[in-house]
């Protein structure tokens, strides 16, 4: 199916899909939790958390990548412990690319989910709690079903952002074919060599196709959920 792509390009595409999927799925629970805390919580450090979440949106991606390297690199203050204790590292691995993509996509994910939570009438949650439901049950039975469209929208947005992530990825985990070379970094690499234009263009076409498919999927999901909410 991917015959018309060079093996190198096909590898980059598959890696990109894997990196983006893992980045999205792994950050989803954290994203919901953070969005809920930001939407409903009143605590010290609310502003700080909000700022931290949005930082990757504002910082140059290369800065985010470099900060990730300082933190999670083999010598980084978290990265060194991970390596010493578990023999695990993000540095120059596809998992590092997923981490970079997740961090870069996190603001978009949290924003979409937070908006959905803020649109839920708090009285619904309060009603559920006076009927005997604990906070966790209230969230599971009342809040979660109502914010599902927002979660899906946030996840699709995060996935798309992860597919396109370039700056932080190349700074943090470089551009190693087969390990950290994602679609955008592969396109960049092809453009750096003479005669690589054709290969780059094919990857560009793939990028466009993936983006369109993701958009169509999210539209379809959103409509399905909206229909369910409107009352079967």
């Amino acid at each position, binding site marked *: 199916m991917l015959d018309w792509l060079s093996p190198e390009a096909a590898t980059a595409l598959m890696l990109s899909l894997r990196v983006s999927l893992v980045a999205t799925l792994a950050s989803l629970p954290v994203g919901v939790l953070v969005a809920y805390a930001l939407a409903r919580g009143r605590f010290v450090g609310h502003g700080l958390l909000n700022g931290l979440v949005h930082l990757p949106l504002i910082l140059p991606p290369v800065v985010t990548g470099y900060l990730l390297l300082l933190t999670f690199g083999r010598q980084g203050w978290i990265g060194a412990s991970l390596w010493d204790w578990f023999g695990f590292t993000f540095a120059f691995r596809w998992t590092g690319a997923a981490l970079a993509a997740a961090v870069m996509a996190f603001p978009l994910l949290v924003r979409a989910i937070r908006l959905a939570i803020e649109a839920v*009438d708090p*009285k*619904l949650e*309060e*009603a*559920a*709690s*006076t*009927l*005997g*439901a*604990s906070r966790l*049950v209230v969230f599971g*039975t*009342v809040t979660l*079903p*109502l914010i599902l469209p927002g979660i899906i929208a946030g996840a699709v947005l995060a996935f798309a952002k992860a597919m396109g992530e370039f700056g932080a990825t190349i700074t943090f985990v470089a551009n190693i074919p087969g390990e950290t070379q994602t679609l955008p970094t592969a396109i960049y690499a092809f453009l750096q060599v003479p005669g690589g234009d054709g290969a780059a263009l094919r990857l560009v076409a793939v990028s466009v196709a993936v983006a369109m498919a993701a958009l169509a999927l999210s539209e379809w999901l959103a409509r399905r959920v909206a229909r*369910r*909410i*409107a*009352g*079967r």
Partner: protein
Amino acid sequence: MSAGIELENVCCDFGTFRAVDNANVSIKPGEFFSFLGPSGCGKTTILRMVSGFIEPTEGAIKIGGKDVKGTRPNQRPTALIFQNLALFPLMPIWENIAFGLEVRGVDKATRRKKADDLLKLVDLPGAADKMVSQLSGGQKQRVAIARALAVEPSVMLLDEPLSALDLKLRQHMRAELRAIQKRTGVTFIYITHDQGEALAMSDRVGVMSQGRIQQIAVPRDIYDNPVNGFVASFVGENNIFEGDVGPVSAGMAGLSSPHGAFRARIAPEAQGKALKLYVRPEHTTLSKTAAAENSVEMEVTEVAFEGAFISVHGVAAGGKRLSAEVKNDGITVVPGVGEKVFASFDAARALLLPDANVRA
């Protein structure tokens, strides 16, 4: 079963703002008790404290004799009905009603049966499988009541649940709520700014203003024997005269005002305070000649036909506005606009009252 509620010296501060100031109430098991007051008077704060969403800054709340300090809303034997009802939009009606039972781990067949029974109780059979959006306002109202009753609360808390309904339906639901309360015997605490609603439904009413409970009494006493000007004005219309209060004898005192000398009732606890005279328009009669006492001449400026009665408005000396209600009985003569008449009232129907009880 139904439980009593005690508020003991309850205060609630939001920052520097005192929303509820030293509230003391003892609500009996099975009582229909209303908190009545304008918006911002603290009545909703009291409800939120009883249901557990806010902790009092000072004082204690007891439900069924037990101090509920520190228990979360889901651990209290209370159910709350909101103004906007807050029905779960994604669940069919029966699941809405059975929500509290599902949380308690009741099996599906029992839940469904209980929901059907409650739908019958609130006079809405056959709605079990509909969605919330398919019901009318009054029907949603009944579902909200059924949902709260399903968990068999000891105390039902209602936060202006009828205010979104139209007049006709509101009046119907008043009677309905009262009937459901009598049938179930659950203690009802009802929050409203509608004095008609509070007076018509309640066993007792607590009138609130600026965080303070002004008076707790049966509806009739709230209307006929208000303790201060705020209560008198909030539950009905008044003609008000200002002046100097004379000596008290046998529960009556004189008031010398720019409009003449009057006599009215005075409560023992009101003596020595700055007082005004309050008399209701329906206790004010109109005549061509002055009465023996408590009579003011006025010129009629407006006559409004209200159906059961006719509302006559006039201006006395100094631009003082007065009004009287004349019964539409076909016998009483109704004066026309521009006519000069005497507005008189019975001293036993007039009250000398202080202003509201507010923080100094």
